[in-house]
Every structure is written in structure tokens, then in C-alpha cells.
């Protein structure tokens, strides 16, 4: 191809990419724009991208119509951090077992574990709900947090894939120096796996923060809600205060977007390493 032809191709490619960018980012920008408008401005024609004048009143109205909002944010944060911690601690230990122990049956159990990922959640939902009711965990955070401390199949898989790439010679060297399996895990594997552990921590935090279904099913008292579930109440009232709803949505995605832009590498690596959608 000659240079002119190649340059035209490059331009075409950029035009297509920019069109795609408009599709994916445009709606988000529109959300930001809407939350800075007054209620009257949302109905204006032509619709304005940059509201004039712009105002933060939507946030004030949001917090006055949802007095529990700060508490919900705190709840969401506590739950997501606990889930994140539980996932890294327990799933890494289980993954270590699968990657490093000599147990004969480990392949069998690994396949069983992977198979549990395929079980549709609806089949366990009602039995779990009844179980939590019986042991008094309904309407507490325990159903949301405790499972993460028991290891999640997805994260075990993620960590195991990474642990397998760490040379076994390091284990042997540790054993010669008198270290046991625990030393190998805590002094060799974990320090070498910081990137993948961070990926796990970030993913579990984001999944937990954005989860609607579980907190919606297992929580009843408004004081215990997560922010996402609380926000749903506002939508449910068919409120016509569009800027306030936009402001609430913005708050719900803010922590995730912040983490994403600071730690983008870990996201993409996690998806490619496991090839999985949450």
C-alpha cells in the first residue's frame, strides 16, 4: 500500500474509534452533565452538554431526600473491604493448596470447585435464604461477607493460575533452608504474587460494591442497606428529580471509577488471565 493509502486508513480507523468512544463514554458524560443541572434544565431543548449555570444542588437534594445515604456509603465500604480481605486471605490459601501440595486427589477437587462456578445461583438462592433465616443471619451483613472468607471459586482459579507460574525451585530452596509449607506460602508465594493478589482484592471489592442482588435479598432494615440498595428505593418511588438521581448514580460509580483509573493494569490482566465475566 502507498503512503497516501495508509494515511487514509489510519484516519478512517481513528474516526471509527472516536465513534466507539462516543458510544461508550457519551452516556457517562451525559450523566455528569445532568447531575449539575436544575430540574428545569433537564427538559430544555436543545439539550445542553455543559449546563449554564451549573449547580451542585442535586447533591444537596439527594442527601436530604435520603438521610441515611452517608450511612449506606459507610456500609457499602465496610462490606466491600471485608469481602476484599476475606477473598485475598482465604482464596490465596486454597489456591496455594491446589498449586503446591502433593495431594493425589487435588485435581479431582479442583474440577469439583470449578464445577461449582457453573451451578446457577438461583438453585441455591432459596435454600440459602431459608438457611440464613434459620441461623439468624438474615438481615445482617454476614451472608454478604462470610462466604468470601470461605474462598470463591473464581478467585481460587485466578490465584492458582498465577501461583503455577512461580518456579518450584524456590519452594525446594526454602525447604532445604528448613522452612515448611507455611513458610513457602507466606514468605515465598505471597510476596511474589502481590500483583495478582491486588487484582483479586480490587475485583472482589468492585463486585461487592456494585452488587445489587445479594444485599437486596438478605437485608431488611434500611439502616443496614448498602448504597446501591438504598439508591434503588429512590428510583422505586418514580421520583422525577432527575439531577438528584444522576448525582446518586455518580456517587455509586465514583469509587469504582477511581480505582479503575489508578489500577487499570490489574483489571485488564485479571480479565485476560481468567477470561471471565463476573
Amino acid at each position: 500500500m502507498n503512503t497516501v493509502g495508509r494515511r487514509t486508513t489510519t484516519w478512517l480507523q481513528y474516526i471509527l474509534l472516536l465513534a466507539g468512544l462516543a458510544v461508550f463514554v457519551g452516556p457517562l458524560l451525559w450523566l455528569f452533565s445532568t447531575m449539575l443541572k436544575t430540574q428545569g434544565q433537564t427538559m430544555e431543548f436543545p439539550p445542553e452538554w455543559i449546563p449554564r449555570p451549573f449547580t451542585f444542588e442535586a447533591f444537596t437534594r439527594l442527601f436530604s431526600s435520603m438521610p441515611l445515604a452517608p450511612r449506606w456509603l459507610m456500609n457499602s465500604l465496610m462490606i466491600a473491604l471485608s469481602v476484599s480481605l476475606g477473598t485475598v486471605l482465604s482464596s490465596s490459601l486454597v489456591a496455594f493448596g491446589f498449586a503446591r501440595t502433593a495431594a493425589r486427589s487435588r485435581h479431582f477437587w479442583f474440577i469439583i470447585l470449578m464445577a461449582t462456578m457453573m451451578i446457577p445461583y438461583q438453585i441455591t438462592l432459596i435454600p440459602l435464604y431459608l438457611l440464613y433465616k434459620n441461623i439468624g443471619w438474615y438481615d445482617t451483613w454476614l451472608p454478604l461477607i462470610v462466604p468470601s472468607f470461605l474462598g470463591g471459586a473464581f478467585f481460587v482459579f485466578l490465584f492458582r493460575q498465577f501461583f503455577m507460574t512461580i518456579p518450584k525451585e524456590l519452594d525446594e530452596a526454602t525447604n532445604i533452608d528448613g522452612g515448611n509449607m507455611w513458610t513457602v506460602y507466606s514468605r515465598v508465594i505471597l510476596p511474589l504474587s502481590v500483583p495478582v493478589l491486588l487484582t483479586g482484592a480490587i475485583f472482589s471489592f468492585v463486585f461487592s460494591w456494585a452488587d445489587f442482588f445479594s444485599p437486596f435479598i438478605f437485608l431488611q432494615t434500611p439502616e443496614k442497606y448498602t448504597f446501591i440498595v438504598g439508591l434503588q428505593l429512590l428510583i422505586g418511588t418514580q421520583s422525577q428529580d432527575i439531577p438528584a438521581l444522576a448525582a446518586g448514580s455518580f456517587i455509586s460509580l465514583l469509587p469504582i471509577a477511581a480505582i479503575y483509573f489508578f489500577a487499570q493494569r490489574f483489571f485488564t490482566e485479571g480479565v485476560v488471565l481468567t477470561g471471565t465475566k463476573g
Partner: protein
Amino acid sequence: MIYSFTDYNAIKTPNWIGLDNYAKLAHDFIYLKSLRNTMFFVLIGVPCNLMFQLIIASLLNFEVKGIAFFRTFYYLPYLVPMIATVLIFRLFFSTDFGVINVVLDTLGIGKIGWLEQPSLIKPVIVMMNMWAAGSGILIFVAALKGVPRHLYEAAKIDGAGPIRSFAVITLPLITPAILFSLVMQMIANFQMFTEAFLLNKGGPDYASMTYMLNTYNTGFRDFKFGYAMAQSWILTLIILAITLVVLSTSKRWVYYEGGDGR
């Protein structure tokens, strides 16, 4: 499993009613409608989604400067919590204040009830899934990167155009990624709940009532746990059956580098 043969409702002790729950399903209008809706998402929504993701992934496979920048932003909607996604779509599609209708109204075309018309709400939900498809796109991008470049060069020398080389080189080589995405997204669509619940609670006229949303209503709103369990079991069996069918036919169309036909 046992509960699905009872009339358990969390208050009385369950009575054994055998297959009554399953028999009742065959005449349950809303149930059948929810099953049809869910099949729409699986049979029409998923293929549309896969095609869309493949097209976007091809864009992101361009070798131009700054491609990482585009990839960052194309992926972002995947991370947006569903509740915010639903709200964003309302900003565009709502009958009274949606941007699209504000524009249409001013142009004299009049307002369209995107979310109020039974025929339009399902396509809107499919579009929501397309917009938030970042991880599916990323899987295809990784697969496209794995196609050896020398194959394209060889095809070019043999006189194949871009479309032909896509059809005979790219597509066969990324079939493993297509299979993976197909299975994962089919399962996800069978289980769709949050999108439909938050957008319009299954309405209008049950047009967006998904299987899981109906099961949720049966179990957690009407407290018919036995009946809901029967529904869950049928869904699980459907998912299992369809996954097995897809996996067993996959031998015929999925190409594995190892070449032993497995």
C-alpha cells in the same frame, strides 16, 4: 430439591404435593411469558451482543497510536454498577424527560414510549448489555491478538481481501473465545434479574419479565417458596441442557491449535 414438591410458604409446615407445582407451571400465564422473554434474550440478545463485541474488539485491534486510551474507556461501562446503567438509559429513553424524546418531540415526530411499549423494552435491555460488555470485548481483543500475523500476510499474497481473510483466518482461529463467551453470556442472560427489575419491574404488560424476576416475585414477594423452587429447578435444567448441547456441538465448529479435534 424436596421443597419443589411441597407448598412451603415459610409459615406452615410444608405439605407434600408431589408434582403439582410442576403441573401448575404449564398453565401459569406469567411464568410462560417470562420463559419466552428469557428465550428472546438468550436466542436473539446473546448473538447480537457477541457480534457487537466482536466488531468493537476489531476496532480495538487497530494498530494505531493511543489505542490503550480507547481501550481504557471502552471497558469502563462494564464497571458501572447496574443501577447507574439503568439510570443512564432512563436519561436517554424515558418518555417524559429522555433526551431522545426531547429531541424527537421538538422535531415534531412526537414522543415514543421506549420503556412503556412492550415491543421496545427488550431491545433497550439488549442495548444496555451491549453498552456494558467491556469484559466480553476484552476477551475478543485478547483472542484477536493471538492470531499469527504471518497468516494474514500469506492470505494477502494469495489475493484475499480483508473480508475474506476475516472469514477464513480470523473467525476460525477465535472460535474458542466465541464458544467461551457464548456459554458465559447465555448463562448470564438466563439469569437476568437486576436489569429488568430496576428498569421497569418486568413491565410493561410483563414484556420485560425475565425468568429470574418472576421466580423472585413468586418466592420473595408472594412467599410461595415451593413453587419458586420448582421454577428454579426447571431453569437449572434448561441451562444445563443448553450448555451441554452447545459444548457437544462445539467439537464441530471450534478450532483448537493442538489439532487433535478436541
